[in-house]
């Protein structure tokens, strides 16, 4: 049986279109509607109520939640970029065997092998008050008393994000970097460029699409995270995503829906802005 090309194209996009419509667009439509509905402690009424939105938009709490999460986002972006770029550069330009390069890249994915809760729990004996790090610091005479900011703190949240998300930066940057023809590097060497000049003037600009894709992963992961921050801060730090989770747990669907839509809009604006600066189509072609 022959299928006309037009029909074949439609058939090819159909599964994705179906999933996207039923799992993304329709639920999004529903929560947008719900965010404008009235509610009490147990039910949602089919009546227009703008309170969820005015609360979300005017409450000083919203601002402070977003300030918190953007602080985490910027620090995580900076650290994962530096570490990811550095590792990628090492993998691509200093590891000569392709086998080793793939092996090391796979090793960077080890944080993903263990489930989140196990990884978090396993850090307690390391970072806790009685943990290995504190004991070592005290035994070495560097600190007198155990450091209490190693765990259940902003530090531990950032540590967890970087531990998990560096790969999200490393992967796309490595991909971008591996596509830089060697002759470009040799041409730069011929021109007399030193290694740091080659990194700054050739490698870095050509990795921009990879950096942008990595940044998109990290923006969505950090802004959408409510689990890691809850565990790693010991429930002490709240972010917008966290606030949504709390309201959902209390069956307060309309305010949760309003805050979700708001968060989504912010994520979309951030990513759109990023894509305006960096043309990632270069990365997607070939």
């Amino acid at each position, binding site marked *: 049986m022959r299928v006309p090309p037009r029909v074949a194209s439609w058939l090819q996009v159909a599964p994705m279109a179906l999933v996207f419509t039923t799992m993304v667009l329709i639920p999004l439509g529903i929560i947008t509607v719900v965010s404008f509905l009235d509610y009490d402690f147990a039910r949602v009424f089919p009546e227009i109520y703008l309170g969820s939105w005015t609360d979300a938009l005017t409450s000083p709490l919203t601002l402070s939640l977003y300030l918190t999460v953007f602080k985490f986002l910027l620090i995580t972006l900076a650290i994962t970029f530096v570490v990811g770029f550095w590792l990628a550069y090492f993998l691509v330009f200093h590891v000569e065997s392709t086998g080793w390069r793939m092996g090391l890249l796979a090793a960077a994915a080890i944080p993903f092998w263990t489930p989140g809760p196990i990884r978090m729990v396993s850090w307690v004996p390391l970072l806790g008050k009685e943990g290995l790090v504190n004991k070592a610091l005290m035994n070495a005479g560097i600190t007198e008393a155990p450091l209490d900011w190693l765990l259940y703190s902003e530090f531990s949240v950032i540590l967890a994000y970087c531990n998990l998300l560096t790969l999200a930066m490393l992967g796309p940057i490595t991909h971008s970097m591996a596509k830089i*023809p060697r*002759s470009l590097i*040799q*041409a*730069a*060497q*011929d*021109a007399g460029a030193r290694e740091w000049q080659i990194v700054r*003037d050739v490698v870095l600009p*050509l990795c921009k699409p990879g950096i942008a894709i990595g940044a998109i992963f990290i923006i969505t992961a950090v802004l959408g995270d409510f689990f890691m921050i809850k565990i790693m801060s010991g429930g002490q730090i709240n972010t917008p995503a966290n606030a949504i989770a709390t309201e959902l747990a209390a069956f307060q669907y309309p305010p949760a829906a309003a805050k979700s839509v708001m968060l989504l809009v912010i994520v979309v604006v951030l990513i759109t802005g990023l894509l305006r600066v960096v043309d990632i189509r270069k990365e997607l072609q070939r």
Partner: protein
Amino acid sequence: MQLKKAREIDETTHTGRPKIRQVTQGHRFDVELVRVTKSYNAKSKAVDDISLRIPRSSYCCLLGPSGCGKSTTLRMLAGHEEVTDGAILIQDTEITTLPPVDRGTSMMFQDYALFPHLSALDNVAFSLKVRKVSKAERDRQAREYLELVQMDHLANRLPNELSGGQQQRVALARSLITRPKVLLLDEPLSALDPFLRTRMRAELKRIQKELGITFVHVTHSQEEAMALSDIMVVMNDAKIMQAGPAREVFETPANAFVARFIGGHNVLMSEGREVSVRADACRIGAMPGMRGASGTVTMVEYKGPFVQVSMTSDTGDDLTATMTDAEYFAAAPQIGDTVAVSWDPKAEHVLS
């Protein structure tokens, strides 16, 4: 700037040679390879004990089939590949282990290797930028070199907005702005269409003459090598088969490989010796006082001013006779005809 003067002089010296050169005089050879070997492992050698001297301001072509070691030789000259054994000298200075930038060489890559994020002008100015030359000065110099390759009108385009031939000109300007003693070109014309290839070829030769520096040009096209070379180096199997002026190589090929590779020759046995006979010295038809063979015509190619007739001899050798169209159409043998081929014994060149 010397470059400018060289250009002015060139315009007035159609008959004479330009008197002002970019390079200093006083040395005999721009490049010397002394027993250079490159091996990647114990068994195989990419380049095996080759020695070569390239006289001052020559156009040198390294010619050979793929895998013969010509590109490896070029990369060793450039410093992009380590030399396993032997020494390389440029203008009497040993540079065997120096980094690329300290050798006085500059490489023009096969894929041009232009920085895709920089305009043509910034590509050319790159080497000045990393040397911290001021922006105004490096732009001025870069423009001058873009003018040399006739690309100054497209200075602000990005590489992907330029055609292959235009990218190549920019790459050439970028290589020349470092004022190399030796310019290395890795199959520079292979990505161009035939028309552009011939034009660019003339351009390369013009620029080489104008600057008076040595060009080392890797190619697998014997036609290209013959058109350009002052000195032609035929390589095969990691070794140099023959090095010399193109005419010398064509008229007196050193061995059967060279005779076959540069084309236009028949390699056959005559009186117990292996000889080469130029295809244009062979005639169809038996003639008194001439040596000869007989064979079956396998192909007739009409090329306008001349006709090329390919045959398989009775002993199984491939033979080619090139004759003027007038000579051919006097007899006009067709494919499948059995014909006699003859040549003057003096046209035989004994191969080693």
